[in-house]
């Protein structure tokens, strides 16, 4: 299948190289390497609907001036929920700044994500508590952190833990990502490289990053690469679960390319109409990650209409809570800007802190602090 775009032609991969367990029409297909019999598909559906709702709320909050910016995950719900739910409680995840669905799977309160985009903090959750590291904004830097963490797992002799690291198609051009591939390969580190190829790095199409399918890059580094339908939550779940299991068993890294599409803008500051055609979006809407699950659940008789009504009502409640929590979120106290720069003492910084406190106090009691 060929999709015409403004400047390039995106070739949607042949079925032979794309792992798919649920077609865009909502038909279940099997794959001998990825048997699935124990998956909670209704739970995955719920996750995807809720994170899409949170995402929609966040975009609205940005439009209303409550958030400075937001990076939407619209269209990537299956890739994130499928892979996120494949993690065991002990596995560690390293996200970019768009992994709201994975954050949801790791139990991070969505309000904590909004803190970052509102400008209240650079990341407010405890990474160890959630086994979910802080968002990384510099493209690809976290792939090395993940690989190092995986080397730590090896040194601890922990054979029940693995690491997953998220990045995008644009990041595959970064030196750090390629260095991470090399490190993981030569040290056989238990890390899964989960690349969400959403076709666009802001305005640059995949063709500007690679001449070969991204998953094939792994071969040159000496470990397996696999391409999965990134809009198929079942396939993302199954492929990630298998790769994590291989990592825990000492078989080293895997590169997963989740072939998906960024249905929204790069962030709320972006205008994709400047660089891609509306028809491309329309084509991808037919492969919506949520709709195909709904079709299958209805067709297979696994869910009654009341199930979907309940999820929609829950989404509304979650959205309302997130909206309210964002609007009432207080700004940090001015002096908080000096906190947590160093573990030990630093008298230069302490002097600046003291002088700024005195300056604020010069405006009168409670003027600034």
């Amino acid at each position: 299948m060929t999709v015409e775009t403004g400047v390039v032609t995106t070739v949607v991969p042949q079925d032979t190289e794309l792992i798919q367990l649920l077609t865009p029409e909502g038909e279940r297909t099997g794959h001998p390497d990825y048997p699935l019999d124990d998956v909670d598909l209704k739970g995955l559906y719920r996750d995807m609907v809720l994170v899409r709702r949170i995402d929609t709320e966040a975009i609205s909050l940005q439009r209303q001036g409550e958030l400075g910016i937001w990076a939407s995950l619209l269209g990537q719900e299956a890739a994130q929920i499928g892979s996120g739910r494949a993690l065991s409680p002990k596995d560690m995840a390293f996200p970019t700044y768009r992994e709201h669905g994975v954050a949801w799977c790791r139990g991070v309160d969505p309000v904590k994500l909004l803190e970052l985009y509102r400008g209240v903090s650079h990341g407010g959750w405890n990474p160890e508590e959630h086994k979910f590291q802080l968002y990384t904004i510099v493209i690809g830097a976290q792939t090395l952190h993940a690989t190092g963490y995986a080397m730590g797992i090896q040194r601890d002799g922990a054979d029940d833990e693995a690491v997953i690291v998220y990045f995008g198609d644009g990041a595959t051009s970064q030196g750090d990502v390629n260095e991470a591939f090399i490190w993981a390969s030569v040290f056989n580190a238990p890390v899964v490289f989960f690349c969400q190829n959403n076709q666009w790095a802001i305005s640059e199409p995949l063709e500007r990053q690679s001449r070969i399918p991204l998953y094939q890059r792994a071969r040159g580094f000496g470990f397996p690469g696999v391409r999965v339908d990134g809009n198929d939550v079942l396939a993302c779940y199954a492929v990630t679960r298998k790769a994590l299991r291989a990592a825990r068993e000492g078989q080293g890294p895997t590169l997963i390319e989740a072939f998906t599409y960024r249905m929204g803008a790069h962030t709320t500051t972006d205008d994709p109409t400047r660089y891609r055609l509306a028809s491309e979006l329309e084509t991808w809407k037919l492969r919506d990650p949520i709709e195909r699950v709904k079709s299958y659940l209805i067709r297979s008789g696994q869910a009654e209409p009341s199930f979907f009504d309940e999820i929609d009502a829950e989404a509304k409640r979650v959205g309302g809570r997130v909206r309210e929590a964002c609007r009432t979120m207080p700004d940090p106290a001015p002096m908080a800007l000096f906190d947590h720069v160093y573990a030990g003492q630093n008298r230069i910084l302490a002097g600046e802190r003291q002088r700024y406190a005195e300056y604020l106090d010069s405006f009168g009691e409670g003027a600034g602090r």
Partner: protein
Amino acid sequence: MTKLTLSRGLNEGLRRALEADPKVLIMGEDVGKLGGVFRVTDGLQKDFGEHRVVDTPLAESGIVGTAIGLALRGYRPVCEIQFDGFVFPATDQIVSQLAKMRYRSRGQVSLPVVIRIPFGGGIGAVEHHSESPEVFFAHTAGLRVVACADAAEAFTMIQQAIASDDPVIFFEPKRRYWDKAEVDTAAGPDSAPPLEAARVVLPGDDVTLLTYGPLVRTCSEAALAARTEGRSIEVIDLRSLSPLDMDTITGSVSRTGRCVVAHEAPVYAGLGAEIAARITEQCFYHLEAPVLRVGGFATPYPPSRLEEHFLPDLDRVLDAVDRTFAY
């Protein structure tokens, strides 16, 4: 007390740290079998194994980036950057990740990573092997930046740096690696002054000479030479470049009324500028002369046949000292 080279002092300090804490790791290019190009890690892989003394692939960003990941896992990695000029590929990981993680996490994440960097010139090397990049890191909040000057200092300071819960950029004066000094290897790092304290190397009354790293020896020799001419120079080894120990600095300058700062790095926007500004603010009424700086020129590091002109030597240091008495 044992007489050790600076390289050996570091080696003994690293050995103590590896023995004291099983979470301490050493990683870098050629640090294993070879023992590092300056032999600082000599014999450590043999004694502590390949899992703790790790020969890494040849990529500096990878070294620091994976060290951050290991630190997130609870390890205390000590990275070796083979030469000063090769640290720049790791700049993003150091400046944007390592330095900022504690702040980003609101104190929930510590990254106790040490990055050892041989720095400075004077060894007749090719380009990129003689640089003094300390100010890039001193300018970055979240990092501690230190420089050792002799074997005894190296032995304790490297242990203190590894024990620090903050990331430390640890500069080693490469042309002094083979200088010998008495080292008390039985003393623990806690008995030494804290990492952020400056140290008076030679006391004096007429002028304060501030320096660090390879120029501590140069400045000490200059002070001894000046003494024969009746001029009393107080030489202070800053040791900590970020944060600066301003109490020790202002205590001395308030007494002498004159100050010269010497470093190999270019004078322009160098550490001396920061020090001079702070002394002006804090010792204004004690000063008999402006703070003068002596250091490298605003050129790239020159070919080695020219480096004697670039590097401040005894005469250029004393010339600066003389000029402070011209006011």
